[in-house]
């Protein structure tokens, strides 16, 4: 197990370093690019295999125990330890990250990220692998300063993915992304240092075991505020979300998939792993505000989507899905804010579900953007609708599948998380103001209705329509490599929807530990 965890991080890191070695991938630029992309797919495939092995070797009888612990001193001067481990909360996220990275890498081998002025595929591979290191490390590390380091590792690769392989106002979007999140994480670091100063350690398991004892109430408040702000920028919570739509609109397909599928989860994971157990008093004080932000985010996200989905608004489909993420992450935040095992389980479930479903949606929308040359909904839909059901039935079906999964149809993954999160808000934790949470729950319920409304509008405008109408572009049907790289997400959406216990049995014991109940 120990070797597995190290290999999970070392493999992509070494791969990223290998892309810097001159001449390793041959001299001819095109062949070099092809080889690099294949190398990327093989390496991320290996990482996925390791992640699956990790899941298989995981002691499912004790998901609450930190497993596969690696704990060696790295920087004694700062008290930073290279401490890794997985439990029932991080394991699904590690597997999700490895899966999405592999699917993205696989997709890129056939559909290399290109466009005008894009750098070589070799650079893409290097950045992609570095990004994977950062994402995996975030979910594996158990030291606050390492967590901060992992948080920062993803910034530079993602910046370059958006700024160099993106489209539209890509440089501005990329800068907005990186400056916004850096501001958040710098403030988060101050919170970590405050905890380290008063608790004398940065070890997350030890701090979590103490449940905030030894930290005064004012310290907890200050630390929770600083850390919370940093994580909420990443999550993103309304009103700190404004970097997200631009970043998604400009990012290339694989960038969007990873941004929505993994990077946003780093924020919510941090809330569960750091904020909740380490500064419980501070979290409890801020929970109602978090709930309020979550509820506003849910309604705001769906209203923004509704506006974008309407005819004549020139709404961008990728932007729409980005705003829908604000709404969906709102459910995750609401579940966390409820401070109940039910709500937290729901939040963690919704986390994974959102990664699967939104990953799929961004893949499909990215493919549409490739085919049409634009993701502008009005251009896509034309007068009567894009009629994907008629012109490219499988592609249309996948989009419709993603949309109904996203709106929370029972039987699919999107349903359980949101239901449990709202259920948690219905009966919030002890000491929380119940009427307020009932209002949040009602707002979230309204949000689900609005979500259904805009997603159905999207399906009607993109999938339905008159196929006999003259089309601007001949839309190609679902290609083989697209089917291969997308179906795992669709299958897992169904599996998680039909068998939620798969994830909930993993997270439930951990959640109870984190909340120090039962």
């Amino acid at each position, binding site marked *: 197990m120990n070797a597995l965890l190290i290999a999970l991080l070392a493999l992509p890191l070494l791969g990223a370093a290998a892309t*810097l070695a*001159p001449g390793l991938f041959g001299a001819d630029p095109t062949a070099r690019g092809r080889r690099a992309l294949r190398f990327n797919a093989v390496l991320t495939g290996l990482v996925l295999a390791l992640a699956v092995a990790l899941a298989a070797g995981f002691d499912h009888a004790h998901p609450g125990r930190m497993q596969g612990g690696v704990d060696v001193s*790295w*920087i*004694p*001067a*700062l008290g930073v330890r290279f401490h890794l481990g997985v439990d029932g909360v991080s394991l699904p996220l590690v597997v999700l990250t490895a899966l999405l990275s592999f699917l993205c890498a696989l997709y890129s081998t056939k559909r290399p990220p290109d466009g005008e*002025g894009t*750098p070589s595929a070799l*650079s893409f591979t290097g950045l992609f692998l*570095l990004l994977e290191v*950062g994402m995996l490390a975030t979910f594996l590390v158990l030291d606050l*300063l390492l967590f*901060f*380091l992992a948080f*920062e*590792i993803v*910034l*530079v690769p993602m*910046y*370059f993915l958006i*700024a*160099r392989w993106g489209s539209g106002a890509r*440089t501005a979007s990329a*800068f907005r992304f*990186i*400056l916004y999140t*850096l*501001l958040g994480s*710098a*403030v988060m*670091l*101050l919170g970590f*240092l*405050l905890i*380290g*100063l008063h608790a004398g350690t940065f070890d997350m398991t030890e701090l979590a075991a103490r449940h905030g004892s030894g930290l005064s109430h004012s310290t907890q408040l*200050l630390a929770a505020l600083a850390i919370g702000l940093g994580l909420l920028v990443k999550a993103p919570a309304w009103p700190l979300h404004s970097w997200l739509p631009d970043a998604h609109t400009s990012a290339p397909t694989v960038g969007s998939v990873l941004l929505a599928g993994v990077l946003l989860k780093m924020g919510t994971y941090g809330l569960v792993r750091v904020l909740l157990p380490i500064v419980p008093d501070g979290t409890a004080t801020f929970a109602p505000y978090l709930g309020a932000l979550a509820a506003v985010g849910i309604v705001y996200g769906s209203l923004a989507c509704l506006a974008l989905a309407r005819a004549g608004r020139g709404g961008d489909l990728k932007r729409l899905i980005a705003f829908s993420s604000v709404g969906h992450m709102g459910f995750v935040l609401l579940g966390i804010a409820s401070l109940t095992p039910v709500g937290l389980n729901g939040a963690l479930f919704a986390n994974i579900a959102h990664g699967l479903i939104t990953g799929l949606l961004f893949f499909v929308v990215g493919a549409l953007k490739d085919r049409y040359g634009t993701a502008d909904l009005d251009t896509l839909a034309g007068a009567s609708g894009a009629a994907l059901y008629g012109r490219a039935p499988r592609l249309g079906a996948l989009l419709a599948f993603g949309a109904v999964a996203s709106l929370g149809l029972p039987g699919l993954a999107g349903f359980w998380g949101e239901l449990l999160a709202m259920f948690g808000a219905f009966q919030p934790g002890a000491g929380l103001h119940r009427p307020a949470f009932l209002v949040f729950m009602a707002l979230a319920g309204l949000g689900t209705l609005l979500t259904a409304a805009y997603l159905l509008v999207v399906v009607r405008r993109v999938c339905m329509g008159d196929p006999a109408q003259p089309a601007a572009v001949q839309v190609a049907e679902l290609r083989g490599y697209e089917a291969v790289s997308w179906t795992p997400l669709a299958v897992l959406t169904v599996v998680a929807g039909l068998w939620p216990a798969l994830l909930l049995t993993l997270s439930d014991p951990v959640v109870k530990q984190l909340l120090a109940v039962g």
Partner: protein
Amino acid sequence: MTTTQLTTTHLMGQAVNLAVPNAGSLIQSVDWVAIAPPLIAAATALLVLLADLLLPPGAKRLLGPLTALGLLGALAALLPLVHGTPRSTFCGAAGCSYVADHFALAFQLLALGGALLAALLSQVTVAEDRLPAGEYWFLLLSSAAGAALLPAARDLATLVVALEVVSLPSFALVALKRDGRGGEAALKFFLSSVTATAVMLLGVSFLYAATGSLQLGAIADGLGQLPGRLKPLAEAGGMLTLVGFAFKVAAVPFHFWVPDTYAGAPLPVAGYLSVVGKASGFAGLALVTSLALRPYGHTWGLLLAVLAAVTMTAGNTAALRQRADSAQGAVRLLAWSSVAQAGYLLVPLAAAGYAGSAHPLGATVAYALIYGLVNLGAFGVAALVARTRPANRLDDYRGLFARDRFAALALAFFLLCLAGLPPGVVGLFGKVVVFQAAVDAGLGWLAVVMAANVVIALYYYLFWTARLFTPGEAAEPARTPGPLTATLGLAAVGAVVLSVAPQLVLQVVSGSLF
């Protein structure tokens, strides 16, 4: 002239003090091992000057390697001092004037190592710009010897003399580039620096008048039991001394000379000034505040905290406004960035005032070492680019990755280290220890100001980094001269090794300095 007179007076004053018990105590045994690092640098300087007179013109290109060897020897002389109790020498009744403790060793490493990197960089510049070799190497070595002496000095006279030994050769080094800009740059540098020295000497004389000693430790004791009527004098003296050092580290509002001086100087000299020149200022500032003015910790702590906040903000906003197509834009950006970095370096000094102990200074030492390495690396790449594109605009860095892969990757790494973002891990942890010093001392507001500044700074560092990888016009890759490759390689390998094992440099944070 006044400078020398004042200094002499004080030295005499001190000698009188020391001679009180018996005249025999003036004959001291000197610990040659302890003073070896600055001594070797100074001896090499004299050797170079002599060799320049005696060697035939054809053999003068050997002076550069000789300088590098001398600095290497001085660095090697640090090794025997690392372990065991700190050695001290030139001791008198009031304490020792030269102490080779960990603080001194760390700053000597920075000064001599920085000078070595600058000397390696200069090998090409001296030959290609036809700078007078003998003078150049002599001045560089003299300045380095002063910079190595300064952190070990424990009395105000030695401190001021050492600081002048650092500064005076630097003026001439800046002026060696014999064009209009070089002269103007040197004059600006000279005038502001001389003003600073004058102000500082006034402060030193006040402190001496109030406490009757020039020894840093004795001043602290004297300040603790000062009669009330002397307090204003001592406070004014401390303040004026600090103002002098603030000039040297280019803290706001004494920073205006920096961009013009750096842009006008030969590039290796600019790099040298930004690292070694600044480091001496910080070493002096740390010594005076933490040792001599310890009883007034809260006063200068607040002063330095405000200075830090203003300096980093001013440096960063000015760097932000640097246009991509202006001439010498790259060096000017590095100049403003060095002003901003000076702001970060001031944070732990301010924290030391609040904490009432010298412990936070370790963060300044660690950060200065990291900054010195990567900043000289960045200047190295700038020198490389300047060979083919003398205008050295930021736009000239477009497509560097396509022209020179190694240089581009190295510069990207250095800039990310300066920004403190992975993969520049060591830069990130350098910032972490500075933040930690501020948070531990209860300077939360300063930490927040610094966090905002780190974000602002990221914009221009990343702007430059991204520029390296954008497609530019194709050009024949020019051959990189050996010494330049060696400098870049040394800096890059150093930064990578420190990124993997930050403990190597961060150990100064947890260890005892004095």
